[in-house]
Each structure stands twice: as C-alpha cells, then as structure tokens.
C-alpha cells in the first residue's frame, strides 16, 4: 500500500523537518508533493507504525544524561519475548531489543538505561532485575564512555530504492 514516494518521504522526515512556518510544504518541494499530500502520507505512515515517533529528538548527553548503560542478558529463547516486553514497560528503559547470540558473545537481550549518574542507573537496573526476575541470567553491563557519533540514519543518501522489511 506504500509506494516509493512514501519511502523517500520517510527518509527525508527521518533526517529532520525544516525550521520554517510551513515545513511539510517545504519537504514536499523535494518530492513533488503538495503540503496536503505530505501530511496525508505521513499520517498514514504513522498509523501503520512505519513512523515510531514524530517529534523533537534530543541529544540526551548534552542534557546531562551522561550515564548510559547497555545491559545484555543471556535469556532462554522461549521466554525472551515475554521478558523483553516486560522490561520495555519500565519507565527508565530507553531501548529493548533481541539480537542473535554469537559464540564469543552469548547474549540475546539488550536494554539501555540513560541516567544522570552511574549510581542511579545501577539502582534502576537492580530494581529492574528484581521486578522482572532477571538475577538468574548471565549479564554484562557496558557503560558508554566517549560518544564518537550520534545522529539519525542518512536514509535519503543511500536509499534511493528503499526496501520494506
């Protein structure tokens, strides 16, 4: 139901809306769509979950959230989804993904906690582990140190023929 123009539009909006009074009209100029068409297409993309969120994207580190922990667990495959969904419901969790295990890296569930200091993040993690009964699983905590790069993906550069799925 979505066409190439939708994917192109999605790429442009992922990179950022212009800061001008009629940003959707401005975006439309690049893809030969009217303002109304841009808005209609974006609404449809949002309704179908192809836009997870539309709004201000903050640099959390600049705003004082410098303690950023990625926690990985080795969870049995048959309960990873249930636990992933439960972890996601926790207010201080900012990402929660399942990824494949590798021989040298046997972890399959990833979650991020962003906080202002390390002690707060560790306390939040302890609460999360109790709440979701995660203590029994092997885990690693990886705090971030330097941020070398953080920005949205450059979809429109490398995705002239975007593929869905």
């Amino acid at each position: 139901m979505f066409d190439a123009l939708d994917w192109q539009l999605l790429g442009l909006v992922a990179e950022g809306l212009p800061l001008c009074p009629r940003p959707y009209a401005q975006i439309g100029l690049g893809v030969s769509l009217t303002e109304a068409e841009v808005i209609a297409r974006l609404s449809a993309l949002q309704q179908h979950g192809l836009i997870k969120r539309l709004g201000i994207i903050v640099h959390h580190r600049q705003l004082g959230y410098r303690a950023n922990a990625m926690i990985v667990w080795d969870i049995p495959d048959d309960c990873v989804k249930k636990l992933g969904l439960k972890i996601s419901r926790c207010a201080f969790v900012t990402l929660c993904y399942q990824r494949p295990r590798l021989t040298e890296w046997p972890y399959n569930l990833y979650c991020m906690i962003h906080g202002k200091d390390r002690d707060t993040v560790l306390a939040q993690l302890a609460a999360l582990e109790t709440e979701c009964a995660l203590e029994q699983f092997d885990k690693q905590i990886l705090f971030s140190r330097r941020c070398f790069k953080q920005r949205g993906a450059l979809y429109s550069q490398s995705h002239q023929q975007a593929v869905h799925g």
Partner: protein
Amino acid sequence: MMDWQKRLLDDFQRDFPLSPTPYQDIAERLGVTEAEVIGALSDLQDRRFVSRIGAVIPPNQIGVSTLAAMAVPEAQLPTIAEFINGFPEVNHNYEREHRLNLWFVAVASDAEHLQAVIARIERHTNFAVLQLPLLDDFFIDLGFKLDWRHV
C-alpha cells in the same frame, strides 16, 4: 532554559502536529509566538540539546542495519573511531567500558552494501567486527523523559 522551552522539549518529542503550521500550533499551546518556537528550536540545535525534529523509524523498515562491536586497543581507539565515522552509513558510534570497547550502528540500502562497509572496516583496521543485527524490537518509543530538577 525558560519554563515554556522545557515544556516544548517535554511535550513535543512525540505527536508532533501534522498540520500545515505545526510550529504555530505548538506556539499556541505554549502561549508564545511561532517565531519564538522556531527561534528556540534553532537555538537548542545550536547548543546541541536538540538533534532535529524528525521521525524515528523502526529498525530495518528502510534498508538493513546492524549493531556492530569491536575490541580495539585503547591507543588506537580515536583513530579507528574516526575512520568508522567517515562512513555515511554509520550513525551511532560509542566507546563502552568493556573488552569490546567500540560499538556502532551501520545502516545500508541492502545486505550486500552493509557487508561491504563491514568488510572495509575489518580490512582497514585488521580487527574483527561482530555483527549483532536486530531480531525483535520490544520497545515503544515515547521519547526521552527529562528530569528538569538537575538540568
């Protein structure tokens, strides 16, 4: 930061107005002018508090992506990080406290393109790149909840 600017950051990380004049709509809700909203967002971008007004797309909807991890000697880390940053396909790149100390995300139009980028990084650095692509996304993104008490 003024109270209305904090509300701007709190209330418009999601459900950004899909109307012809979104900044005007926001201004009305915050009791300021459209020019003030646009000016504040531009200023917050200059101060690097705000990355952009944009859409967050679920991973792997457009193209293919992977989280990647490398174990790099401390002394070589800045140089290797800079080399990896040079790829437009790479959008996040962090040092983490672990033996696997360099973690980045690469996005490309297709699997072949993505593997070419990873291969070039491995060839140039002589270190292995572990690939950890997404299998399932459990998170519902509602934006980043800011605690203003200590900002």
